[in-house]
């Protein structure tokens, strides 16, 4: 009936490898539903890893960009900002004599500009709403510290009258962000009552002179921006002239590091940091959060690995009779393993590529959501290293999983499955 044995190919191993690859691809193509689900599982694992890693990097990069964009070289604080439940405003700002310090610093040759800023909780009321507590920001009005998107902005510079009171004329101008405008149902030209207490607020009516996203993005909450002196006046801190922090822009030929060191010796009671040190300090403050983020990435990788192994095991489980039949027919363990490894690598490559491709729209969606909720986007960034890492995870996890699973397949006993 037969005409004798066929002869081996010129490169038998290559022929065997190509055939095993063909079988692997045929099996994947045949079990489409299972293949699609497996690819989806790997895609999700890659997405989880890239988005979590991208979020971690995005937070750091955004912080760095914000600091760079602020154009400040040196940051001065009086230590941590503390809550002051018994005081007006709810915060205990720790820089005392802010305007005097501002003047002193600006006389230095190595300092081009200094900007004192204060944050206080204030009561805000419009004609159409009850009192709301919002963050009041005291800021200088010149030098582009506040970016105005609608309206004319402040008409006068910040003025300070010390010795316990503010006896001069107040501008009674306020700049608000869009969320505050929506919340209070006001626009440019309307009035808002603002004060550290409702009593003070009743006596201080401010005109909205502009809409600005500058501080709401920074704070992540609705805010009202007043001239620093006027915020101090309506919160009762004019006498002590308190501010939360001061930022300095050094002269063109000055070294921020050297200026900071010099100031530190001159003002030992203040914390003085360069831009980079300030960012590091903030990141150190967020160490627990960052550790949690890192743990999430690690867990995502572990979950991805477990998921991939599990999916591949399930994939193999459903094919074990086929593998047993192949073994019974004389197929070697190495060919069976090769078939499995090829399947795993195809699944890993497709799942990894899909995961990387879907990372872009997913990151864009998350950034838009973040913009909507907290006021600033770019929370998730996807540098090439993260994308390459995501793909490598899928590929390596599939390879490792297939090697682990192929050990089981190599030991398969045909009689147990046929």
């Amino acid at each position: 009936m037969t005409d004798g044995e066929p002869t081996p190919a010129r490169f038998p191993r290559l022929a065997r490898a190509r055939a095993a690859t063909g079988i692997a691809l045929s099996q994947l193509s045949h079990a489409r539903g299972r293949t699609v689900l497996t690819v989806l599982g790997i895609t999700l694992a890659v997405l989880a890893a890239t988005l979590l890693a991208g979020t971690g990097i995005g937070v750091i990069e955004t912080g760095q960009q914000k600091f760079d964009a602020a154009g400040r070289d040196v940051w001065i604080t009086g230590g941590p900002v503390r809550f002051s439940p018994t005081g007006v405003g709810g915060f205990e700002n720790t820089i005392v004599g802010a305007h005097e310090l501002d003047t002193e610093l600006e006389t230095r040759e190595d300092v081009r500009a200094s900007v004192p800023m204060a944050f206080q909780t204030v009561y805000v009321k419009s004609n159409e709403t009850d009192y709301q507590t919002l963050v009041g920001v005291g800021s200088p009005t010149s030098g582009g510290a506040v970016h105005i998107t609608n309206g004319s902005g402040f008409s006068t510079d910040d003025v300070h009258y010390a010795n316990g009171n503010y006896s001069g004329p107040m501008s009674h101008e306020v700049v608000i962000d869009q969320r505050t405008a929506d919340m209070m149902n006001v626009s440019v030209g309307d009035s808002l009552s603002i004060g550290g207490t409702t009593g003070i607020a009743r006596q201080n009516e401010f005109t909205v002179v502009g809409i600005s996203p500058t501080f709401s993005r920074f704070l992540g909450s609705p805010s009202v921006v007043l001239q620093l002196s006027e915020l101090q006046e309506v919160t009762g801190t004019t006498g002590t002239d308190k501010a939360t922090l001061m930022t300095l822009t050094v002269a063109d030929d000055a070294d921020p590091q050297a200026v900071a060191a010099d100031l530190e010796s001159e003002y030992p009671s203040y914390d003085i940091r360069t831009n980079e040190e300030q960012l590091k300090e903030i990141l150190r403050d967020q160490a627990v959060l960052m550790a949690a983020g890192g743990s999430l990435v690690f867990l995502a990788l572990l979950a991805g690995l477990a998921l991939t192994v599990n999916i591949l095991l399930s994939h193999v489980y459903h094919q074990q009779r086929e593998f047993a039949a192949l073994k019974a027919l004389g197929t070697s363990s190495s060919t069976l393993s090769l078939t499995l490894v090829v399947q795993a690598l195809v699944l890993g490559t497709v799942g990894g590529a899909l995961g990387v491709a879907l990372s872009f729209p997913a990151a864009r969606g998350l950034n838009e959501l973040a913009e909507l909720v907290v006021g600033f986007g770019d929370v998730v960034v996807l540098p090439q290293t993260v994308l390459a890492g995501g793909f490598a995870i899928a590929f390596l996890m599939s390879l490792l999983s297939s090697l682990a699973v192929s050990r089981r397949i190599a030991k398969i006993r045909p009689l147990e499955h046929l």
Partner: protein
Amino acid sequence: MADSVSEQRSRPAADAADPATALRCERVAREYSRGRDSLFSRGGDAPTVRALDGVSLSIATGEFVAIAGPSGSGKSTLLHLLAALDTPTTGDVTVAGTDVRSLSSRQRTTLRRDTIGIVFQHFHLLPALSARGNVALPLIERGVSKRDRRARADELLEQVGLGDRAGHKPGELSGGEQQRVAIARALVSDPAVLIADEPTGELDTETGQRVLDYIEQTASERAVVVATHDDHVIDRADRVIRLRDGIVVSDA
């Protein structure tokens, strides 16, 4: 019954060194463990079942042998031993002059690849591959080129009457056609031994007869061993070995 148990046991096995002897069993026994009485029991030997007990036989090239017997008589166990899918607890099994017990699992796989063609009762064709791909499977391990594999598979499929069905997948073939594909797959490497387990068990009479025709045609070039309940197979075999309770009760 042609031979008694005592007669069978005294029947001399053929000489393994004889080139005409394709398969040989000598005082073969196979025991299986039933496992422990309970999950928490400790120590002691697990109870065993003796599926084969002192079986001796030899099958020459060119013989078409049917192994018959009721369910549980040891037919499949004997077939598995002859196909080098299993090893005996005691005794010796020799396939084409090679002692199976002395082989590692890998060596037994190689022995099956080079020497034995197997036809399963449930076919066990790979559903993802075409009839041609299934038939060509055993040639992959031999490193045969794709072109040669294809030509060889087509040749075999033509011989079993499925030349026009080569591109169809198992799911598109009838039971009889699938069994013929399985036979073609078993023969594609031109093995010295063909082992078939209930090859007509899932087929209607007419299709079964056709399948038997194909098996019978191959018997002149190799040893063919078929485990069966089917009287049609028994009628057409050169020799019938009957088993009961793991013992050969007749061999004629």
